[in-house]
């Protein structure tokens, strides 16, 4: 049985002018020890769906569907019970750690607070554990640094403090929403390394939300691609990157330059701009930008269905033929032997 399972999740935002259909009936699941990547561009619904899972959307959001975790439907859980799940069983890290850390409390106080509240530790135990957690995410001199305030840490360290806080109660699910987007590339590598080690050692399920296909390729076993509030393709990462079947996935892969490119090839952008989320017209949302679109694509919304094998799914009436490959890869790894 899956650790977390999301069924027909739907999120709408009521604004004064219109209803925004942010997430349209998406379903997916996560097992323990699994890393799942959710990729897509701004406004595709990747962040909103995870906020919905945790029940932390603003008041004008309408959520429908089922989020099953440990036998409960989280969407139906009363607030008091949901508070216990959040932070203890399922926790989340965000893009900008500074907005989620309290600037007037020491880092130690912020970590021990969760430990004492959720795990009922006493002050000494909590201090001990907090120091261990900071060490775990690679912060040197952890015991002394507990007394420091967030501004005394650099950007990369703050993000590591956030991870330490997020894993403090040994959550079963960790949701990381663009955890490295605000960081420089060498710091990004540090954070990804920490996450990689945590998943392997603590056997937690990780949902990594990102716009960066490279980050997913390096860290996630399974990948979901979202577009305009829907899942357009999902499957094992290797399969999905080697044989993308949705024209949008292929489009994404062809539009990003690669640092290991063999020769300078002209990028192939996806024409046009994403669909307005105010309308819920029939038809595939990607059709207006899609070179593979047919009459049917414009008339009927395609559902996610298996293609090739049961794991690889695509929501498309006219999938990319197996053979229209993503941009060529160099013959051998570019890294020189040391």
């Amino acid at each position, binding site marked *: 049985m899956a650790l977390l399972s999301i069924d027909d999740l739907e999120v709408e935002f009521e604004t004064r002018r219109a209803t925004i259909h942010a997430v349209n009936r998406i379903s997916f699941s996560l097992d323990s020890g699994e890393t799942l990547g959710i990729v897509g*561009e701004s406004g595709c619904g990747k962040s909103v769906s995870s906020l919905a899972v945790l029940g932390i959307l603003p008041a004008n959001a309408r959520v429908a569907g089922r989020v099953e975790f440990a036998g409960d439907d989280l969407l139906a859980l009363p607030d008091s019970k949901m508070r216990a799940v959040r932070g203890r069983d399922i926790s989340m890290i965000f893009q900008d750690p500074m907005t989620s850390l309290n600037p007037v409390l020491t880092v130690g106080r912020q970590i021990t607070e969760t430990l004492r509240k959720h795990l009922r530790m006493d002050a000494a135990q909590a201090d001990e554990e907090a120091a261990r957690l900071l060490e775990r995410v*690679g912060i040197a001199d952890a015991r002394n640094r507990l007394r420091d305030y967030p501004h005394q840490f650099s950007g*990369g360290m703050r993000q590591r403090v956030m991870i330490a806080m997020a894993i403090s109660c040994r959550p079963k699910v960790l949701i990381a929403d663009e955890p490295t987007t605000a960081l420089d*590339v060498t710091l*990004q590598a540090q954070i990804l390394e920490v996450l990689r080690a945590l998943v392997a050692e603590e056997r937690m399920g990780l949902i990594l939300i990102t716009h960066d296909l490279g980050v997913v390729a390096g860290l996630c076993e399974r990948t979901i691609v979202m577009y305009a509030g829907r899942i357009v393709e999902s499957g094992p990462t290797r399969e999905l990157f*080697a044989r993308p079947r949705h024209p949008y996935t292929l489009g994404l892969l062809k539009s990003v330059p690669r*640092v290991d*490119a063999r020769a300078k090839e002209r990028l192939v*952008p996806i024409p046009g701009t994403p669909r307005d989320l105010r309308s819920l017209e029939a038809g595939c949302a990607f059709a207006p930008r899609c070179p593979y679109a047919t009459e049917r694509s414009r008339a009927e919304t395609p559902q996610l269905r298996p293609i090739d094998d049961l794991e690889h799914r695509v929501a498309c009436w006219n999938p990319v033929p197996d053979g229209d490959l993503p941009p060529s890869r160099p013959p051998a790894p570019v*890294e020189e032997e040391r």
Partner: protein
Amino acid sequence: MTGEANQLVRVEDLKVYFPLRSGLMFDRHVGDVKAVDGVTFGVRRGETLGLVGESGCGKTTVGRSILRLIEPTAGKVEFDGVDLGSLSKAELRTMRRRMQMVFQDPYSSLNPRQNVGAIVAEPFKIHGIASGRELEARVQDLLDVVGLPRGAGNRYPHEFSGGQRQRIGLARVLALNPDLIVADEPVSALDVSIQAQIINLLEDLQREFDLTYIFIAHDLAVVRHISDRIAVMYLGAIAEIAPVGKLYADPLHPYTKALLSAVPIPDPEVERSRERIILWGDLPSPAAPPPGCRFHTRCPYRQETRCDTEVPPLRVLDIGHSAACHWAEDIKAGRIEPRMPAVP
């Protein structure tokens, strides 16, 4: 003099220090943030020089000092053979028509109350180049060139998406027919599918208008794609400069090696097999850069001698390829092994 005839821009020993002050009454000068500390390079006519590095490395400050948007503390910037520091205000203003800047967030540089036509017409008016019917025609031409739809001129910036706003910014920049465009993270705020549109547009414009680019970015894949030559900066200095092919195939500075190995590649097969050099320390403060080589505090190839005492000069190691590392030859030959700490 190193001034080759085909060089459009020549930067020599550029230094930009921002003073640190303290004290309530006496505004004491207590030190400097050495944002740029002795940078030398040239840019040939028609080429794209990529300037890469992480936050705080000084790449943006270099770009701005070239346009004299920041007054350098020391050093010289020559544009088409003219020392910009020697020009009067009026002369500088005339010269600035030939060099323009494109910013990361076009929205903040577009007046929200002007329609797009007026925004693009402004440079023509300021420099008294065109008016009336001719002005209208030239504005429309520019909007066509950057791929904005017909009728865009009558609409306002907020009606456009990020990618289209960057097009508006480019139309305005092209109005004065510049020779040099300094583009500071021009695509990093855009979604990937839109990023590719703007990168292609920049390439087309370069060919059509014979432009020289200084392309400042932190994304090494994008920089590789668009640049002919690349300068890698670390804490206010150039660590390595080389033609793009050489830099990526044969990086000579340990920082470049680490940087390249840290860039994720959208290919699970390659990601599984590649070797990563993870730099565990943090970036030192540019107000108190480490002595000797600035990178020695994080360098996996650091040696017992010289690294922490002697500043490595940027040395020519191959044709057009320079790096600032005492041990570059030994590292390349495999005589020095990197120390790779595991996850602490």
